[in-house]
């Protein structure tokens, strides 16, 4: 017999179908919410078993020893979000909701993960015990760190204010180490908090922008991002992922959280420092001899630099980086962190420094050692040749889009022009690499190869909405556009400029196709009106303010 029974379990029991129990069970639900007012005598024998379980679920004896009052510091967050259709930019998907947790870290501020609040249209904080709800707004969300800071909305009811006042900020742990024992705080559906233990099994910096992650082996599962893990009652991390198979959760550590909170509270937001280069390990002794880096054991070789980055100004492919910011780098790209031990170079670059800092880098170039200064900047999705465009942040944050903003597009004569994004490619499914035009996939996977000016993007003829004005062109889709109206274009801004100066789209030139797709000037206005009406497109263009 289960000792804790939830409403969900009762519902599933209903679906299994125990006929004579059904009406009683329905009352049980009512009973649960409105207190024990129902006469219990009417219950059948079968349902008494269930009721017993339910009674235990009510505040009472089965729940583990009463924990510290997390209700004052941990809130449930319900986010209503609405994503744009990644393939049809004027179309929004139906709104949906997701839930996670947040931690009150100062008066009026709640910390959670960025992916919880992504594309949010409404964020609600809910007090577990009282059920009181507070509306919140996103102060700052960083998709690279996967962190978000929320503030309570001004328009709160008197009740909610009272609820907010009762909130108690949780302090952040100073640091965290391997093998630390953490307390993971879980909110049960009953509104009761439960705790379980977790152990830090790994501290690692991934190659992706997110600088440092704690891998925590947990006793029980974690559901919902933002679940806090505590070290001696202080916040040690918030969860971003959980793997059932290995029973490990991934947490953003307190060191990263502290940086983020400080940064977010002292605008302008600076974000994660980024150098802008790629490297390969330099383990091969033959290659070390070839490059003339035999006298040191460490060092990695630079393979690519990203145009517009700090690295692009001073580093070049073939440079061997032997030390970063005064700390030696081994041949696999790791260093020894004073706090965390062996970590990837990525954390040294992004984790300790802020955008705007300049750091000394020891390199070997042409067999001679030298030191260069690399300016750290913030990597901004919108500056990428092919941005991801999945994660709108606030203005000035790394995301290519503002909250609720679609990518730029233009529908003229049924021809849909937009820029290529990672989100667009991946929208075609798991096998997108084989399903999309191999040229576009190649551009995306090898975008570092394309030496370019900042602001260069790939403009696509993504689809053609069939209409009499575009007969003959209707089979085209996902083609790279090199020119409009005969003028070369590098991005949608160019497209808007050229099209506006000509009073409309006259011709589109596709890569690899010598014949332009021409549109009938005289028929264009009427066609646009018709297409907007037929396909119910609210706006035929979206152009960002610049």
């Amino acid at each position, binding site marked *: 017999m289960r000792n804790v029974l939830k409403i969900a379990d009762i519902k599933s029991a209903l679906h299994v179908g125990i006929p004579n129990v059904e009406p009683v069970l329905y009352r049980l639900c009512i009973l649960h919410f409105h207190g024990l007012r129902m006469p219990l005598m009417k219950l059948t024998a079968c349902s008494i078993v269930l009721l017993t379980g339910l009674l235990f679920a009510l505040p009472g004896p089965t729940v583990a020893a009463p924990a510290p009052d997390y209700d004052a510091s941990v809130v449930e967050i319900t986010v209503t979000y609405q994503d744009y259709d990644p393939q049809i930019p004027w179309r929004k998907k139906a709104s949906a909701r997701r839930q996670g947790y947040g931690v009150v870290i100062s008066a009026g501020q709640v910390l959670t993960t960025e992916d919880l609040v992504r594309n949010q249209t409404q964020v609600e904080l809910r007090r577990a015990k009282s059920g009181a709800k507070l509306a919140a707004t996103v102060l700052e969300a960083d998709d690279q760190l996967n962190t978000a800071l929320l503030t309570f909305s001004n328009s709160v009811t008197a009740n909610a204010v009272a609820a907010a006042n009762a909130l108690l900020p949780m302090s952040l742990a100073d640091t965290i180490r391997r093998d630390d024992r953490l307390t993971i705080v879980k909110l049960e559906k009953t509104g009761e908090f439960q705790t379980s233990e977790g152990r830090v099994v790994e501290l690692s910096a991934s190659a992706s922008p997110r600088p440092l992650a704690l891998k925590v082996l947990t006793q029980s599962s974690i559901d919902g991002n933002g679940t806090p893990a505590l070290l001696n009652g202080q916040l040690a991390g918030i969860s971003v992922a959980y793997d059932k198979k290995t029973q490990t959760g991934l947490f953003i550590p307190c060191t990263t959280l502290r940086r983020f909170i400080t940064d977010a509270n002292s605008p302008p937001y600076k974000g994660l420092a980024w150098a802008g280069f790629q490297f*390969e*390990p330099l*383990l*091969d002794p*033959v*290659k070390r*001899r*070839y490059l003339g880096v035999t006298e040191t054991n460490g060092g990695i*070789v630079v*393979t*690519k630099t990203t145009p517009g980055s700090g690295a692009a100004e001073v580093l070049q*492919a*073939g440079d061997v980086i032997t030390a970063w910011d005064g700390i030696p780098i081994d041949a696999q790209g790791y260093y020894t962190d004073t706090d965390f031990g062996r970590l990837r170079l990525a954390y040294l670059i992004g984790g300790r420094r802020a955008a705007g800092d300049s750091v000394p880098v020891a390199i070997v170039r042409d067999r001679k050692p030298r030191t260069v200064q690399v300016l750290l900047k913030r990597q901004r999705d919108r500056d990428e040749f092919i941005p991801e465009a999945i994660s709108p942040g606030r203005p000035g944050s790394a995301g290519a889009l503002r909250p609720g903003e679609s990518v730029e597009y233009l529908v003229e004569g049924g021809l849909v022009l937009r820029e290529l994004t990672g989100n667009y490619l991946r929208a075609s499914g798991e*096998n997108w*690499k*084989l399903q999309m*035009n*191999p*040229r576009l*996939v*190649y551009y995306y*996977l*090898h975008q570092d*190869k394309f030496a370019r000016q900042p602001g260069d993007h790939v403009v696509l003829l993504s689809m053609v909405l069939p209409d009499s*004005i*575009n*007969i*003959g*062109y209707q*089979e*085209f889709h996902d*083609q790279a556009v090199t020119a409009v109206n005969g003028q070369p274009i590098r991005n949608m801004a160019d497209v808007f400029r050229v099209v506006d100066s000509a009073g409309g789209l006259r*011709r589109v030139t596709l*890569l*690899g*196709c*010598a*014949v*332009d*797709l*021409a*549109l*009938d*000037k005289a*028929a264009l206005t009427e066609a646009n009106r018709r297409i907007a009406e037929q396909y119910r497109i609210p706006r035929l263009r979206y152009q960002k303010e610049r």
Partner: protein
Amino acid sequence: MQAILRYGILLVITWVAVTVGLNAQAAWLGKHGFRESVVKVYTTIQREDYAWPWQPAAPSSASGSGFIIGKKRILTNAHVVSDARFIEVQREGQSRRYPAEVAFIGHDCDLAVLTVRDPEFYAEAVPMELGDGLPDLNEEVIALGYPMGGERLSLTKGVVSRIDYQLYTHSQVDSHLVIQVDAAINPGNSGGPVLFKGRVVGVAFQGIPNAQNLGYAIPLPVIRHFLTDIEDGVYDGYPEPGISHMETPNPAMRRNLGLPGNDTGVVISFIDPFGCAIGILQTNDTLLAIDGHAIASDGTVRLDGQTIEYVELLERKQCGETVAFKVWRNGQALDISVPLANRNDPFAFRYAYERRPEYFIMGGLVFAPLSRGLLMAAGGELNQWYAHHLLYYATFAKVDGLISGRDQFVVLRNRLAHPVNAYDEPYLNKIVREINGLPIRNMQDLPSAFSNPTNGFHVIRFLDDPDPLILDATETANADPVIQRRYNIPEISHIEPAGVRK
């Protein structure tokens, strides 16, 4: 245009259509005498293994169908006898099989002619006659053959349900006319005749997996083209004009091109550097007529009361003939003749048969040219970021001008593990740009490039990656005999002489 922009073409490799034959039913055969002309073809096939190119795959037995045509020849599908090490044929009623040889094979049209030396095989055989023309839709045809490996002749009836252009899966590149028959076709029937009013109008050759009652046959025009081609003793293949076109129904496009009329011509959007039209026709030329027949804006011509695609007229021609176009260029109508040929196109990426895969091993690193065989062997790896670019290079080699002096893309395809190459795994699947300062244009460049080490190193540079792979020249030379023994490799390289590749 479509041919080039339909990048999906290469993806067909993952959806290889099965070759199929027809079901059996009636016994009304005997009185027609077809029994004597249809043969079962027994083969022992040994494919190449592009993952382990120095050693072919294990042999396996297969069977197909064929039929006797004049001059003591047997017509069958190319795919029935491709990569065959041993071929036997047997006519219905014969008590033994007769060894046969491939006299001609056309991989682009999936047809082959076999001959049998023993005259006894042909005793009392009645060659089948080719029909006069294509049957119409809804005409009843019968298909004969040996589906599913059966020993006795089988017959299926069906009607012609469609005649259209379609990809021939044997080469995975070529499209020709196809007759679609509404009868289920099964493996083993391949190469069998499709008869209309007692005469051959097609050769059954492929179907679509999961599609019911759909069979495809190679139609008469393609059969005749093949037989005419081999009359001079050599199969040249279809001429390759190498032009991609766009249809011109859009009035704005027509005005933009300054085209006369309102329903004429298709406009050239791309010219293949290996086609025979290059240097003669230009992009943005509009083809108004072919051999005196006006081309409509959708690319069709009216001929003998029928509407057919102009490409079909091109397909009737042989290499060495010419085609006369009326071309609209710069506001003028010009008469332009294009001599037809089939140039060696190393970037067609046809599947190669009867050809040993090329490879070259240095320091346990296996270099191989990008080919359809290699792509198919790579399979799911193409869905990975580290190999996907091979698909791009194969698909857009010519359109995006990726060739730049090469006639092959040489790929570092494999690593036979040995201490000499312990750190070289990250370079796999990259395309070689240069070795020791010498540009690598094809496999033949490899031996000479490796014969000139750079200060005791081999420096291998790749496309799309500035990071070179470095080998110690001396260590490498010492390692290869060891690697060759350890991995049981008979030869350290196989490179075809120039001009053989196709």
